[in-house]
């Protein structure tokens, strides 16, 4: 009985030490930003800044858009002003001629989707900028960003 108790205690202690060491190794704090923008024939450029501070180990940006008419350009710039990603989506028909019921890719639907996901390890410190450049765009844009830190 005494031996059994000793074995049990040692096992329990070993398990506790393992769990403790796992917790001590990695401890990330994740910061989220979620933003949705509706476009109703807009042509106004908007800039969204994401500040990266010291200690950030990773920056993830995900931008998705659905455009029914007009066009939309998304550009991502690092704190140095260098373009690090971009896409443009655009329907070519005028708004009044779009057949909104055709969604099966039969050739007449002019809806266009664009999505960009960027993950940057040890990103540059400072303001990363996402530029949203619509041109009479009807649709929507969704922006999500996450920053991770090593504590």
């Amino acid at each position, binding site marked *: 009985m005494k031996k059994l108790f000793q074995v049990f205690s040692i096992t329990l202690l070993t398990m506790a030490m393992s769990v403790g060491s796992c917790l001590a190794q990695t401890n990330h704090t994740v910061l989220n930003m979620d933003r949705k923008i509706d476009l109703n024939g807009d042509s106004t450029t908007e800039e969204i800044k994401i500040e990266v501070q010291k200690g950030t180990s990773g920056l993830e940006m995900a931008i998705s858009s659905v455009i029914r008419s007009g066009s939309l350009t998304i550009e991502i710039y690092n704190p140095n002003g260098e373009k690090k990603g971009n896409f443009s989506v655009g329907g070519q028909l005028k708004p009044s001629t779009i057949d909104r019921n055709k969604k099966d890719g039969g050739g007449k639907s002019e809806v266009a989707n664009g999505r*960009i996901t960027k993950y940057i*390890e040890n990103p540059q410190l400072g303001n990363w900028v996402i530029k949203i450049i619509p041109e009479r765009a009807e649709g929507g844009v969704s922006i999500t960003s996450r920053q991770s830190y090593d504590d």
Partner: protein
Amino acid sequence: MNRWCKILNLITVAILITSGEVQANEPKDHFISGQLNLDNSWNRVVYLSHIPTFADMYRMSSDMIIEKATLDASGHFKIKTGYLPVEDQLYRIHLSKKNDPPASLIIGGQDENHIFVITGRNSDFEILGKGDEGVFRNIAISGSAANRAFQVINEAASYLDSGDFSGSSVKREFITKAIYEKLRFMADTSTHPLTSLYAIYSSNFESNHTQHPEYYEAYLKKWRDEKSSYFTAFRNQIPLPSSGSKDLSGIAIALGFLIIGLAIGWFVFSRKKKTDPLVALSVQERKVFEMIQNGSSNKEISEEFNIGLSTVKSHVSSIYAKLEISSRKEAMNLK
């Protein structure tokens, strides 16, 4: 009758021979073929879009799509290229997710849905998806050296985002410059114009071409015979090497005109001065000069203007000096 049969036979044989030659000369079909590993989240249709310049690589609209092909149950597809332009151009092959329209572009991440290829009317090559991590994340291309080179350039450029830049910003700067240098080297040593130009675009030339003017001058010279839309767009983004000398010659011409104008003005002014010497005289001196020309003595001038004799003499001396004369006789002869 026999004669007509012989003629008919000859005509038939001639037709058969001719049709055989036509069939032999018909162009062989060319394809982009491949096999992709898709799960049920994808539509089983692959699209081909034409990319007219490198700036359009990440533009998506339905009017860019020129062809589509169905993937069979095992993911095989074939896209005919027989109607494409003969010269190599840039195209994009993409899939769309279920619930997404055909014109959809996904950049980055596991669901990246496209790949770029260089092809022309007579190209044949195969795209094979390897592994399960995303449809286009692990692709092997066989039968096209240009497209394999394209992939190598992509791998080099992708290190800018995925590389380990932990440490100081100086380390990041060194590594970034080294990657751009490598890409410029690849551009310089590539024999295919589009892969060469793609390496330039991947090296962020817009922000560093002013730091390497001699490199870009030599690059433009090397590819000066390339007339494609890709090189035309690129040349429009790089200032031409001769624009500096044009500016200098313009400045030289303007300076020349200025000097000539100044010389003409000086000449005209000096001639005007000589033909009208009285301009230099003051109002009082002119009145004194008129009396001198009429033969009046200094005393008469003094009484006329009610000024002292010494003042008259002073005016006379000044008049002589300004008109460059030395006697009353010369003053009276001056017109």
